[in-house]
């Protein structure tokens, strides 16, 4: 390479790419990114964001102009801007700092914002244009697009499209050409890169059109694929870590999609086929916070202390069981444990001649301390082995044994010699010898006293389920402990009630449940191994009312009114409580004034709101970290599934002051049952997690807690009914208020009047989006073609005679003329004149001689001869153009021959 060539190459390598396609792509990307800011800004801030957008775009164009046309001043400009910013910041530094130190601290940031933006713009420009490093902005943009939903940022169509076009257009543009790994500078490569970038952008835009169509028409299928893939992933992880059982009902309101594996949970047998869906409740939520409903059992503790069967009498306890089974369990459980401890202390005192008056058992950490009458700790605290601590009942005797045996100095406690200890885990008792006397401590003697009371036996049955739900290891001493619930309903007649048997699958008692309005039944039973794992789960049996016909049944009972009233007051004070703030939902309820004493009107409004604001979807997507689940579900995403509908409904009921609880369990449709002649009951159904459901229950006097179905069907129908409320009642109320359900198609999309939409690419966004992409790709393609045409026209004025001749050959071939000739034939001039009669044969001959001279003579053709061939080419193109068919003319003019 000569010095001159080297200098030229260096000059070429230093020269920036002046292609307008580059800056257009860059501006598109900037606009896309700033659009994200604009779309997510608060309404008050939108004009500011708009101003910032304009300022950044203008600043970028200015930088580009200087960089391209005044390249040598560019670095001075960069330095100047940096100095200017520094000079501007320094005097107001104190104000900025004080702005930050003020409450809120944002005034300092606002003062800094213009400088930050200027620096960021400059930095990005420098990276992209000067250093040609696209990777940083590439990662930033991709991160923004992918993580925006997680961060709660809304992405509009034009943001996504523009960012994607910018990303990949710039990526294509920045493709490096090299020779032997060193950068190669070739004249015209920038043009090829720009054309490639434009071609890629047009193809991407064009690909967006079928993409939007596919997204629109196969939306659910597409999301279902993700959801299933996520499911397989989760299953894989669970399997890997040995966490196979899933608790479907732990009160959590999911912020993501609903995944149903279809794994069977239990077998269900009924005597009579239910007319409607059979609701089997499993978990009742009391207070909603942090996307979780707290367990209602804890909530009701205070109330049931008040109606403790010991103090309120057996009758009252029974009533409590009928209406309020679950909370009662907790209370009774405590009573059982307390009873046991008291008897234990008594026994210990007797046996050891030490009067023990109190103890402290730390369930969590698993140790027990006993205190004598002087408050002296007579048994040192001991940390129990985990397997013992986990089992409360077995833990107590074992713990005592350990305390006296292992933690006494020289096996003595005081003067008492502790000689031997025997633990009988299988029988749940321990024996040890103190002062030659054998002391046997067992849990079992406690229970007969508990079992004497019907209510307590019922309670024990629930101990299983309670423990099961809370994930605690089952009580070993209760295994094989089969018992019957005695008839608690004075008017109970099993011939008049439906009967149900629930048989858990795979010994899984985590999701066991029971029907509404139970009358009597056998509880779940389980057999466990020494590690507390359930090896066999037995079925439970209930008698229940599947038709609510309890009205008046209890009114004859003494204290009924007092009890119901007291519970209603309690429920009203506890189940109308809302812990968290839901601004949009609160505003909606606040704006809509209803007669809160009319439960039907409130229910109708809730159903109307849910139906019009959201559609049922198992794949509503994740809720952004920053968003409130319910507000996002109803007012942004407009789609969700049962837990979202139920939570929203429960909160709305509570906002209107109506006691309401969130319930999860299983809703088994009657279509799932099959007649089974081998079954004692007649109809059986295999219930899988696909039947898992959430609903709300409201408190109705004389009925207790009744379920209300608030989740619409996939086509948007509302099927809620409860005593005093049905479809016709709902329609009347809606008519009165002028409310109207939206009509949805089988996919849940709105096909009639409504303005709330239901997320996704609905009709109101789909068409504009399609038009936008089509129009944008067409405009971009046309701009590219037009730009190329202008450039080529300009180049044609100076092209060589050989280039003109080559183009003439191409032109002729395009017009299907002289297709078998390439111009080197001897008779080409004559054939050309034959094909184009308008052409003077002398001109053709002269052109051929000029070309011959250009190719073979030392001096080549002179400028006049070049010009002659160019003009002849131009004339030929006009002749050919005139004879072309209309549809070939644009191709000829703009793509092939550039006339």
């Amino acid at each position: 390479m000569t010095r001159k060539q080297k200098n030229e190459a260096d000059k070429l390598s230093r020269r920036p790419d002046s292609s307008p396609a580059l800056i257009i792509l860059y501006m598109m990307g900037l606009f896309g990114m700033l659009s994200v800011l604009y779309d997510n800004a608060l309404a008050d801030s939108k004009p500011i964001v708009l101003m910032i957008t304009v300022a950044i775009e203008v600043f970028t164009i200015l930088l580009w102009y200087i960089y391209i046309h005044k390249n040598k001043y560019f670095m001075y400009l960069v330095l100047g801007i940096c100095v200017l910013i520094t000079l501007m910041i320094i005097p107001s530094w104190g104000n900025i700092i004080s702005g930050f130190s003020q409450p809120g601290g944002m005034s300092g940031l606002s003062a800094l914002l213009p400088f930050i933006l200027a620096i960021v713009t400059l930095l990005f420009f420098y990276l992209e244009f000067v250093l040609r490093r696209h990777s940083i902005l590439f990662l930033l943009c991709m991160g923004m697009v992918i993580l925006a939903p997680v961060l709660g940022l809304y992405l509009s169509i034009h943001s996504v499209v523009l960012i994607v076009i910018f990303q990949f257009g710039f990526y294509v543009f920045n493709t490096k050409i090299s020779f032997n790994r060193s950068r190669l500078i070739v004249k015209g490569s920038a043009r090829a890169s720009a054309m490639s970038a434009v071609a890629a952008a047009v193809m991407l835009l064009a690909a967006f059109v079928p993409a939007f169509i596919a997204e629109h028409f196969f939306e659910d299928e597409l999301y279902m694929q993700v959801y299933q893939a996520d499911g397989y992933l989760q299953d894989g992880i669970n399997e890997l870590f040995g966490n196979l059982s899933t608790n479907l009902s732990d009160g959590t309101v999911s912020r993501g999609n609903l995944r149903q594996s279809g794994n069977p949970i239990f077998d269900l047998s009924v005597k009579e086929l239910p007319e409607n869906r059979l609701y089997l409740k499993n978990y009742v939520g009391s207070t909603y916070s942090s996307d979780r409903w707290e367990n209602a059992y804890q909530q009701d503790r205070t109330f049931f202390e008040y109606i403790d069967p010991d103090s309120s009498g057996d009758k009252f306890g029974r009533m409590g069981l009928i209406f309020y089974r679950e909370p009662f369990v907790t209370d009774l459980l405590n009573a059982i444990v307390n009873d046991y401890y008291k008897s234990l202390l008594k026994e210990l005192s007797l046996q050891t001649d030490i009067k023990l008056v109190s103890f402290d058992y730390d369930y969590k950490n698993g140790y027990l301390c006993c205190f004598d009458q002087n408050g002296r700790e007579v048994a040192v605290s001991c940390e129990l082995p985990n397997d013992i601590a986990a089992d409360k009942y077995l833990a107590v005797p074992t713990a005592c044994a350990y305390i006296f045996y292992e933690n006494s100095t020289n096996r003595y406690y005081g003067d008492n010699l502790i000689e031997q200890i025997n633990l009988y885990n299988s029988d749940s008792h321990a024996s040890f010898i103190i002062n030659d006397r054998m002391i046997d401590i067992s849990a079992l003697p406690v229970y007969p006293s508990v079992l004497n009371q019907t209510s307590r036996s019922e309670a024990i049955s629930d101990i299983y389920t309670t423990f099961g739900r809370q994930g605690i290891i089952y009580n070993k001493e209760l295994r094989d402990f089969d018992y019957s619930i005695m008839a608690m309903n004075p008017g109970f007649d099993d011939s008049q009630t439906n009967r149900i048997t629930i048989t858990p699958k795979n010994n899984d008692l985590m999701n066991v449940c029971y029907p509404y309005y139970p009358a009597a039944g056998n509880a779940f039973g389980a057999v466990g191994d020494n590690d507390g794992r359930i090896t066999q789960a037995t079925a439970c049996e209930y008698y229940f009312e599947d038709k609510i016909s309890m009205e008046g049944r209890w009114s004859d009972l003494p204290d009924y009114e007092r009890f119901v009233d007291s519970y209603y007051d309690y429920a009203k004070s506890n189940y109308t409580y809302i812990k968290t703030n839901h601004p949009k939902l609160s505003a909606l309820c606040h704006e809509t004034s209803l007669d809160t004493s009319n439960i039907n009107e409130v229910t109708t409004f809730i159903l109307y709101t849910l139906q019009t604001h959201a559609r049922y979807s198992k794949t509503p997507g994740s809720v952004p970290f920053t968003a409130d689940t319910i507000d996002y579900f109803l007012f942004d995403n407009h789609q969700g599934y049962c837990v979202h509908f139920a939570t929203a409904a429960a909160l709305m009921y509570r906002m209107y002051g109506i006691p309401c609880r969130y319930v999860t369990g299983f809703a088994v449709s009657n279509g799932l049952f099959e007649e089974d002649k081998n079954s004692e009951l007649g109809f059986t159904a295999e219930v899988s997690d696909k039947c898992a459901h959430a609903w709300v229950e409201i408190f109705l006097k004389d009925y207790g807690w009744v379920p209300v179905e608030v989740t619409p069907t996939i086509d948007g129908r509302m099927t809620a009914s409860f005593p005093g409320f049905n479809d016709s009642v709902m329609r009347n109320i809606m008519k009165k208020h002028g409310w109207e359900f939206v009509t949805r198609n089988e996919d849940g999309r709105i096909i009639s009047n409504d303005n709330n939409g239901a997320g996704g690419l609905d009709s109101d966004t789909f068409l504009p989006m399609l038009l936008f992409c089509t129009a944008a790709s067409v405009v971009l393609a046309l701009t590219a073609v037009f730009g190329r045409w202008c450039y080529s026209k300009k180049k044609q004025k100076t092209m060589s005679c050989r280039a003109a001749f080559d183009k003439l050959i191409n032109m002729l071939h395009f017009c299907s003329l002289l297709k078998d000739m390439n111009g080197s034939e001897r008779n080409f001039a004559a054939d050309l004149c034959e094909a184009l009669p308008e052409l003077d044969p002398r001109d053709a001959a002269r052109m051929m001689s000029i070309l011959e001279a250009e190719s073979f003579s030392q001096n080549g053709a002179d400028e006049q001869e070049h010009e002659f061939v160019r003009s002849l080419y131009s004339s030929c193109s006009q002749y050919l153009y005139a004879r072309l068919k209309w549809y070939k003319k644009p191709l000829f003019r703009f793509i092939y021959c550039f006339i």
Partner: protein
Amino acid sequence: MKKIVTVLLLLLAWYFAGMNRQPYVMAAVICGTIFVVLSFFLTRYLKHKLTAEIPEQSSIIRKNMQAEFKIRTDNKCRLPINKYKLTICMNYQGSNRPVIKKLSGNACPAGDPEENLASVYFAAPYCGMISAELRRLRVYDYFMIFSSSSKLRDKKGEVAVLPPIRKMNIRMPAFGSYTNEPVAETSSDKKGEDHSEIRFIREYREGDLTRHIHRNYSARTEKLWVKEYQRENDFIFDLFLDSSYYKETDIEHRDAFYELVYAVVNNLMENDIVIRVHYLDKHRGGAVMFELDSRKDVDRFILDLYKSDCFCTQEEFLNYFNVLAMNNAMLLNTSLEWYFCGRPIYRFQKKNIYYELVNRYFDLS
């Protein structure tokens, strides 16, 4: 790797789009997938539309300069090509160590006024012929995820690397004493200046000027005949190139030999001596004689020498050339020895030849 990254990126975006229910991002993922599939087929299509060639099949440069090598790509497609990769095999003649170089470039679409011409530069440290061959052309899609390659056939070119001109210090003898035959033959290479008398005509030999061809006589006999002109004041000097001493074919040795021949011939010519160079070319099956009286002739001769197969055995060499004649002339052999009238002048060292040529004094008197 890019394929894996692309698939991972698409999967990640698809997962986030699906899990967060982002229709636009999902559409972008579908769009990306469509584009990836399209890219796969695009490379197959573009592969058939792009060809590469070496427009100037032979070029001449000087040693130690950057050699320019032009490669033209012809894109018959209406779409631009964002990236192609060309495998170029370069090799010095006689060397068995070819160098593979990769050129990646882009190409404007068919019909575009911009010519797809890439000039690549590489160093030429030795004299000789460098042959370049375009072997494989790989075309990439726009995002460079997929590629498709095709083999190129008969896309060759060569670069002749001439030795640099060295100024030697030679003391010439009196003309009458060393010329074996004071003749007055000439062959002016300037058009229109040919006023010399034709001495005789002979058969055409490689290296003869085409304008010396006797057209009438050649047409009559259907053989090529050239006219030998008579010059008045020049002396003819015979130089034999004995390449029988050297058996190896390493580039450095060849380079030194070419340097030596070129320097000697050029420096002798400065003394208005017509040089007749004799050497053996096994390709042509015999002795070759070049008559040099201008620098252009020297360049043409050295190019011919590059292309010839002059390395032979002693016997072969002696079969073709008269020892007596050689004893009365000048001789350069491939052991880098220089003889004049049978008298050794100097033996050059391969590594120091540049220094020796320029700094030593050679007395031929």
